[in-house]
């Protein structure tokens, strides 16, 4: 056992939106955490908290860090503030848990990852799907070669976020890191990075608006991994047929197929290879009830509690080559940037094609009509 295990960690929280409040609830209930301060720009939110729980509230982030002696911080502000808040926190020597997506500019992500590492600080991004039992099982199965060589993967995310043409929130503003690319696609892309690393090519990216004026509501892309599978990504956050966000991974290999979502992991294994322990040839199903580890406190899914507990334990043990490190999230930010660039460059090409009046283009167009 590490000597620091059981040491109380002093944590502050900045950003009290949907994610921030639920992080606050879980971390405040953590037996090895002392919550020392919360920070938000919204006075009424701070007012409610100040009046109902005994907590120091701040509208000035630096003041909070100065006055509370926090040693770790949870950052859950709108995405465009992540880079500067993370930098300030690391420079003060704080361990940082930052909500996803990490930084809107991937070069910030890379720089902050190496800064945090150089200072030996715990750095983690809130990609909670890496703490979902079913996806952890997918990772184990892929690494053990259970389905042989993986040739194709379908990565999906659907849910009912934007269902009508309105919404002025940052989540639906492109320049603030809104849109289905950063909010939804980031999750399956992050799982792909975990399973297969960095892609070497992204093509056929479409980012379409369905209802949003300023940003994308659906994203499709083809992602190629060096020496690995070709991936089709399909994301739509304007799908009312889903009750809540659903992320799914399907992987086809030479020796079988894996399907997983938050609830279950379905595996078909051919009899061409020896199945891993606990598995048989043919269909195998593992449910969340088998795959989920108990947590100390539950608000909205074990994975949210588990990732915060992991953050606290990393601080206590001094471990910082962790799951969901800044470096791993930088891979995701870079992959998203590749998709964005691909979508924009093909859109630019298409618009110049529309403006072409050369005979070659007219001929091609005529041929296409036939």
């Amino acid at each position, binding site marked *: 056992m590490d000597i620091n295990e059981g040491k109380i960690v002093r944590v502050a929280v900045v950003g009290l939106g949907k994610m921030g409040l639920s992080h606050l609830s879980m971390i405040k209930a953590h037996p090895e955490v002392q919550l020392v301060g919360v920070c938000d720009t919204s006075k009424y939110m701070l007012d409610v908290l100040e009046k109902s729980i005994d907590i120091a509230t701040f509208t000035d982030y630096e003041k909070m860090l100065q006055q509370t002696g926090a040693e770790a911080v949870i950052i859950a502000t709108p995405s465009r503030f992540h880079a500067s808040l993370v930098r300030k926190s690391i420079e003060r020597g704080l361990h940082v848990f930052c909500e996803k997506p990490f930084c809107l500019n991937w070069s910030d992500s890379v720089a902050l990852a190496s800064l945090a590492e150089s200072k030996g600080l715990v750095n983690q991004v809130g990609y909670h799907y890496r703490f979902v039992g079913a996806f952890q099982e997918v990772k184990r199965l892929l690494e053990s070669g259970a389905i042989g060589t993986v040739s194709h993967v379908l990565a999906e995310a659907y849910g009912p976020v934007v269902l009508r043409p309105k919404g002025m929130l940052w*989540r639906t503003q492109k320049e603030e890191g809104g849109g289905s690319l950063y909010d939804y696609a980031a999750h399956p892309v992050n799982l792909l990075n975990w399973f297969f690393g960095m892609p070497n090519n992204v093509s056929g990216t479409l980012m379409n608006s369905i209802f949003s004026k300023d940003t994308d509501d659906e994203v499709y892309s083809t992602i190629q991994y060096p020496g690995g599978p070709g991936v089709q990504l399909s994301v739509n956050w304007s799908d009312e047929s889903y009750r809540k966000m659903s992320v799914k991974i399907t992987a086809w290999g030479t020796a079988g197929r894996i399907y997983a979502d938050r*609830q279950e992991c379905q595996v078909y294994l051919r009899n061409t290879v020896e199945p891993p322990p606990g598995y048989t040839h043919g269909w195998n199903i593992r449910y969340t*009830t088998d795959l989920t580890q*108990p947590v100390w406190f539950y*608000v*909205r899914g074990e994975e949210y509690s588990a990732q915060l507990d992991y953050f606290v334990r990393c601080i206590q043990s001094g471990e910082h080559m962790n799951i969901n490190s800044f470096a791993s999230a930088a891979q995701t930010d870079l992959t998203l940037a590749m998709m964005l660039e691909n979508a924009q460059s093909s859109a630019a090409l298409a618009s110049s094609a529309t403006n072409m009046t050369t005979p070659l283009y007219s001929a091609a167009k005529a041929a296409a009509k036939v």
Partner: protein
Amino acid sequence: MEKLLFGDNQFFGVNHMSEEKARVQAIRFRDIQAVYDVLDTAYDEGIRTFMCTTHERVAEVCEHVRANPERYPNYLFYPGMPYAHKYANAVTEDGILGALKRFMPQQGIFSAAFRGGVSLATKDIEGITTLLIDAEMKMFQGMNTPVIFLQNVVSDLLLGLGMKEAFLIFAKHIRSKYHAEPGFITMNLPMMLDTLDEVGIENPIVCSSINKLGFRMCGGIEAYERALRERKFRAVAMSIFASGAIPPQEAIAWVCSQPNIESIVFGASSRSHIRSTKQLVDKYWSLND
């Protein structure tokens, strides 16, 4: 409370085991008549309490029961509020305050309380909370609702934050306005009991996952067993099958052997499941009486 309460997850595409199964159920219950048929079946098997969320489709069920009083004498509703996804999706779209505004029946007190920079008084928090409760309860007008629950997403969020007074506000309002007993759904039973104790809510009705696997029982199965033995509260057990991971007979035999459980809430879609659950509960509970 009756020994068996009928739950509503199956009607609204909620299945903690499988998205596929959830979708099959959502398709099956697309026509509200299919919901009435299953409720009728449960009623005829002697299960006359419907423990339901404040999902908009429950409003249709209320309407149906109100229109057919002779079919459902002594039918009880145990509402659980709020239907969380309604709020969660609205919060993603409009922000926390925007979502609150959308669900507030009257804007007066709200705008006064939240107008830029104005300090928020405790009475405003109380006022907003009670208005939201009233909005959720509207669909149950004229129905018999002797127990009204706070759903776990909200109660556990408040529990973690330590907003203990909120439980008192809820309890007081449920008692005074609806002459009903407040209930609390939680995934963190031992901690919830401590908190309710602290704010002086005595012998509370608390509904939590109680199953042989220890699934969604935060604090651990031993702490739950100890609470059932030693704490003074009225326990309602949910998730007794751990989403189907425990075979029915084994699940029910274990739950019925635990002391001081007053009710079990379960969901089912067929007469055979409803009947066999009732028979197993009758059998094992009488064995342990």
